[in-house]
């Protein structure tokens, strides 16, 4: 297996569904951050067969990890400090999503107003339903899977 060096401070996102790492890279806006990122695709996993892993070397408070709860809460989030795993973050559905998903309602103001944030609120945690802040159009995350 490919070896990537240990982090001193940051996060390791493990058990990412194979092939999803680049999407997560984008959701976490890692392309805009000036930090060291390692993406491992199709790593062997006893549990999943294949998996992706992302390692990010940066202060933990610089990352908005809540969005991972929306993308796939099976992902394991290891918090690293001084080279050691100090915590595992439990992923929950975020109460609010900003510019993560887009409203599909052609009658929504977001379809014409330039520069407007796409904002969704968690309307039903049990059914995993989000609604657009502006028009209340429903968005159900189909990518989320139960543990």
């Amino acid at each position, binding site marked *: 297996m490919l070896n990537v060096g240990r982090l001193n401070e940051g996060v390791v996102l493990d058990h990412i569904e194979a092939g999803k790492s680049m999407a997560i890279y984008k959701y976490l806006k890692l392309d805009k951050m000036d930090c060291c990122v390692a993406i491992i695709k199709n790593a062997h996993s006893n549990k999943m067969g294949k998996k992706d892993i992302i390692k990010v070397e940066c202060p933990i408070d610089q990352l908005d990890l809540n969005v991972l709860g929306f993308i796939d809460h099976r992902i394991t989030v290891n918090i690293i400090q001084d080279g050691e795993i100090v915590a595992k973050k439990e992923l929950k559905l975020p109460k609010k999503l900003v510019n993560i998903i887009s409203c599909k*309602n052609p*009658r*929504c*103001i*977001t*379809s*014409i*107003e*330039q*520069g*407007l944030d796409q904002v969704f609120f968690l*309307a*039903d945690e049990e059914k995993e339903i989000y*609604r*657009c*802040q*502006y*028009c*209340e159009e*429903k968005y159900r995350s189909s990518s989320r899977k139960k543990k």
Partner: protein
Amino acid sequence: MRHLMSPLDFSVEELDRLLNLASDIKSNPAKYAHACEGKKLATLFYEPSTRTRLSFEAAMLNLGGSVLGFSSADSSSAAKGESVSDTIRVISCYADICAMRHPKEGAPLVASMHSSIPVINAGDGGHQHPTQTLTDLLTIRAEKGRLGNFTIGLCGDLKFGRTVHSLIKALIRYPDIRFVLISPEELRLPDYIREDVLRKNNQSFREEVRLEDALPELDLLYMTRVQRERFFNEEDYVRMKDFYILDKAKLTLADPDMLILHPLPRVNEIATEVDDDPRAVYFKQAQYGVYVRMALILTLLEVEVC
């Protein structure tokens, strides 16, 4: 500073105060005739409206204020591509309060986020129409004598009918209200109202296709128009537009005290022969609409009249 986007922006107690104020305005119009002197209402109507716009303008004029605005997107800077957020920033420099109607859902909310004056949602696409709801509540309270303990039938376009969505959200806060939702399959209530509002609040409701099956048990019948402008396909509109027609013959099935409401404009869904029936209160509703908008303007401008 407060805005009005949804009827739920006001608590039940605040709504009571607003409706009491509207009732007092109805009883003593002279007392309020100069309450807004020197104040300006901007009516920003990006899609056609007769009743709502004129009702707002009449309300402000009755209060001694003045009005300015536009009545279609073509006659505004929207035709040049100006955003809602830019428009409201500019209008905030010209007026003290504004009422906005827009075909895009959520446009008044965007305006409120960038406005330095109170913004009233005067209808946004098929989404919300809170001042119609205030009108409906005042009409029901004044004509029925109570808000609560009745069975209301909502009939027609329940899918795109924003007045229905807003009214349901407002009424669930009052006790012992039973809803009968009367619509063709294609125009049933959207699931976000059925599931998130009715079911979530354990509200009693049932769905019917035939108006005749619901009429005998109703204390109130709220008719709505099938709106051509909400359909992408003209064929669908033509198929749906005359699905319900309330006439004298059907009314024989209804209780003698049942009230008939309609947000207007009416097309074919209520035959003109019904207009003289004492149960028809839809034209009175238009008058109540002016009183309640006067009360709303006073409330949002924080004008107190002693």
